[in-house]
C-alpha cells in the first residue's frame, strides 16, 4: 500500500491528540510518540529528496490527461452557468409569454422568434431561459443525491471496515439486499413507496441507490488496509485504534470513494431523468430541471417539436460526459498501476 495521502508531502507536525498525558498516557505511549516523531522526520527527509506523494503524482498526471481537462472544463462551465443563471437567462423561466402562448396549438409549438432564440416550451415559456435555469436544479438534484448517498454509504462502509467481524457481516447483508435490485428498479420501488412523488422522493431514491456502491467500496478498501504495513506500523507504535481507523485507514480509502462520487453524479442526473420519464419525477412543472424537461414534455411532444427533447438531452449528455471523463481520469490517476 501507499503512504496516507493526507500527510504526505506536507510538513508533518506532531499530532496533538497523540500527546501523552492528554490521552491518559502511559509511558509506553510516550515512547511510541517519540518513535513516531523520529519516523516522521525520516519520512520528511526522504520526501525532501524528490519523492512525490501519490496525491501530487495523481494531480500531475491528471493535469496532463486531455480527458480530465475536457471533463473539468465541462463541469466548470456547467457550474458557472448554474451560478450566474439569472444574469445569463434572457427571461424569467416561469413566466408564460402571451406572444408564445397565443401561437401554441395541439400540433404546433413555436420555434425561434424575436427575443426567444430557442422558441417556446409546451406552456409558452422561454425554452432557452428554462434550459439555463435548469442547470441549477439539475446540479442541485445530482449533487444532493450524490452527497446523501455518499454520506450514508461512507458511514456504513466505515463502520463495516473498521469493526469487521459480525458488524461487517450484517452491514454487508444489508447492502446485499439493496444490490439485489437493479438500480432503476430500486429507485422505482422507493418512489412508489411514497404516496406521492416529489423532488425529494426523486433525490432520496437516486441517493439510496448509490449507497451500497459507496459502502462496499469503502469497506473493501479499509479491510484491505487492516493487514497492510502502515496500519501494522501505527498499531505497533501504540496509536489508538480509533485514530488508526480515522487517520490512517479512512483517508486512504476516501480517494476511491471521491472518484466514485464523480462518476455517480452523471448516473444520478440520468436516473432522475428516467424517473421523470416513467411519471415518477418531480410533479412541479414550474421547476425547470433537465431530466424533467426531457422525460416529461420532451418525449410527450416529440412528434410536435422534438427540440423540446433535443436541448435538455444534449445538456444532460454533455454534463454526464463531463463527470464521467473527469471521474475516470481521476480513477486512472490514482491507480498505483499507472504510477511511473
Amino acid at each position, binding site marked *: 500500500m501507499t503512504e496516507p495521502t493526507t500527510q504526505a508531502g506536507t510538513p508533518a507536525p506532531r499530532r496533538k491528540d497523540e500527546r501523552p498525558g492528554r490521552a491518559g498516557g502511559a509511558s509506553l505511549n510516550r515512547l511510541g510518540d517519540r518513535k513516531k516523531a523520529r519516523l516522521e522526520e525520516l519520512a520528511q527527509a526522504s520526501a525532501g529528496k524528490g519523492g512525490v506523494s501519490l496525491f501530487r503524482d495523481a494531480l500531475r498526471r491528471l493535469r496532463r490527461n486531455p480527458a480530465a481537462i475536457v471533463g473539468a472544463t465541462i463541469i466548470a462551465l456547467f457550474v458557472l452557468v448554474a451560478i450566474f443563471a439569472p444574469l445569463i437567462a434572457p427571461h424569467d423561466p416561469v413566466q408564460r409569454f402571451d406572444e408564445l402562448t397565443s401561437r401554441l396549438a395541439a400540433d404546433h409549438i413555436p420555434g425561434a422568434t424575436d427575443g426567444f432564440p430557442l422558441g417556446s416550451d409546451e406552456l409558452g415559456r422561454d425554452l432557452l431561459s428554462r434550459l439555463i435555469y435548469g442547470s441549477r436544479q439539475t446540479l442541485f438534484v445530482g449533487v444532493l443525491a450524490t452527497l446523501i448517498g455518499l454520506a450514508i454509504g461512507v458511514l456504513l462502509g466505515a463502520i463495516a471496515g473498521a469493526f469487521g467481524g459480525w458488524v461487517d457481516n450484517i452491514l454487508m447483508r444489508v447492502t446485499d439486499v439493496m444490490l439485489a435490485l437493479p438500480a432503476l428498479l430500486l429507485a422505482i420501488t422507493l418512489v412508489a413507496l411514497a404516496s406521492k412523488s416529489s423532488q425529494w422522493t426523486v433525490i432520496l431514491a437516486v441517493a439510496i441507490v448509490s449507497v451500497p456502491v459507496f459502502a462496499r467500496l469503502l469497506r473493501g478498501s479499509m479491510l484491505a488496509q487492516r493487514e497492510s504495513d502502515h496500519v501494522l506500523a501505527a498499531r505497533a507504535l501504540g496509536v489508538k485504534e480509533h485514530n488508526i481507523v480515522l487517520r490512517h485507514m479512512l483517508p486512504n480509502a476516501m480517494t476511491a470513494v471521491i472518484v466514485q462520487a464523480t462518476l455517480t453524479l452523471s448516473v444520478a442526473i440520468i436516473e432522475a431523468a428516467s424517473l421523470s420519464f416513467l411519471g415518477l419525477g418531480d410533479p412541479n412543472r414550474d421547476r425547470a430541471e433537465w431530466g424533467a424537461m*426531457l422525460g416529461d414534455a420532451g418525449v410527450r411532444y416529440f412528434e410536435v417539436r422534438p427540440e423540446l427533447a433535443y436541448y435538455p438531452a444534449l445538456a444532460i449528455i454533455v454534463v454526464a460526459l463531463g463527470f464521467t471523463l473527469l471521474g475516470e481520469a481521476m480513477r486512472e490517476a490514482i491507480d498505483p498501476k499507472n504510477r511511473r
Partner: protein
Amino acid sequence: MLRVIVRRLLQLVVTLIALSALIFIWLRNLPGGPVDALLGERATPETRALLTKALGYDQPIHVQYGKFMQRILTGDFGNSIRTGDPVIEVIGRAFPATVELALAAMIVAVGLGIPLGYLAARWRGRALDHLTVVGTLLGISIPIFFLGYLLKDVFTQNIHWFPPSGRVGIGLDNTNITGFFVLDSLLTREFDATADALWHLILPAVTLATIPLAVIVRMTRASVLDVLNEDYVRTAEAKGLRHRTIRGRHILRNALLPVVTTIGLQTGALLSGAVLTEKVYNWGGLGTLITDSITGSRDYPVLQALILLAALVFVVVNLLVDLSYAFIDPRVRVR
C-alpha cells in the same frame, strides 16, 4: 467448491427473505398503501376498517408475514387490484415478452461488444479505437429512453425501415405456445410471422443493448490491453506460435474472464432498461407492467411480485456467473 455453492445459496436465500420482508412491511404500512389504493382518499373510517379486516391487515405483522410467505411459496401472489386477475397469470403473460427482448439485447451487446472491444485494444490509438472509446462514452451518457425516441423517429418516421411499436404486425398475432413470438412462429412454421417478430424486435433490442454494449466493449478493451502486456504473450510470440493460436488461447481466453462478470452484472442494466425501453416501444412486457402498476392507483400485489421476481433473476444470474468463473478459471477452483 460445493461448500462455496452452499454458502452462496444460503446467502441468496437470506437476502431474498430480507427483501421480501422489507417490501411486505413497506407496502402495507405507508400512506397510500393498499387500503387507500382500493378505497380512495375519501372513504369513511368504517369502510376503511372493514376492508383492513377483510384483507387481514388487522392481524399482527408477523402473522401476516407468515401467511404471505406461505402463499408466495405456493405461487399465490393474490390478485391484481387493477384487473382482478391472479398476479401470477398477469406476470406469466408479460414474462416471455421481456425475456425475448432482454435476450435479443444481450445477443447484440455480447456479439458486437467483445469483437469491438478486442479490435479497439489491438489497434490501440488508431481511428477505430478512438471511435470506440468516444462511442462507448456517449453510450453510457445518453438517457436510453431518449435514444429510443431518436431511433424511433429516424427509422420509423423518416425512413420506414422498422415498425414503431408493439411486438407483431396486425393480422399476424399467431398461435401462442411459449409466448416467445420468434420461437412460436418457428414452431408453427409461420416464417413470415418470424420475420415480422424479428423486425419488431430490432429497434427495441438495439435501444436496450446500448448500455450493456458500451460497458462490455470498455471492459473487453481494458482487459485485452492488460493481457497484451503480459509476459506470457511475449513468450508465446517469441516461441513463434501462430498468431491465431496466441489470440485465441493466450489473449482472449484470459481477457474474457473479467468480461464474464461484467455480462452478469449487466443483467441488472437490462432489467432496469427494459422498463424504459418497453415504455418507448409499447412492448407489453414486465417493464410495461411495472409502469402500469405504479402510475395511477398503485397495484401493490403485482408490484411486490415483480420486485421479488426481478431480485430473484438478478441474484441468481450473478450467482451463476460467479460459479461459472470456477469453470473458466481453474485458479479460482483451487481456493
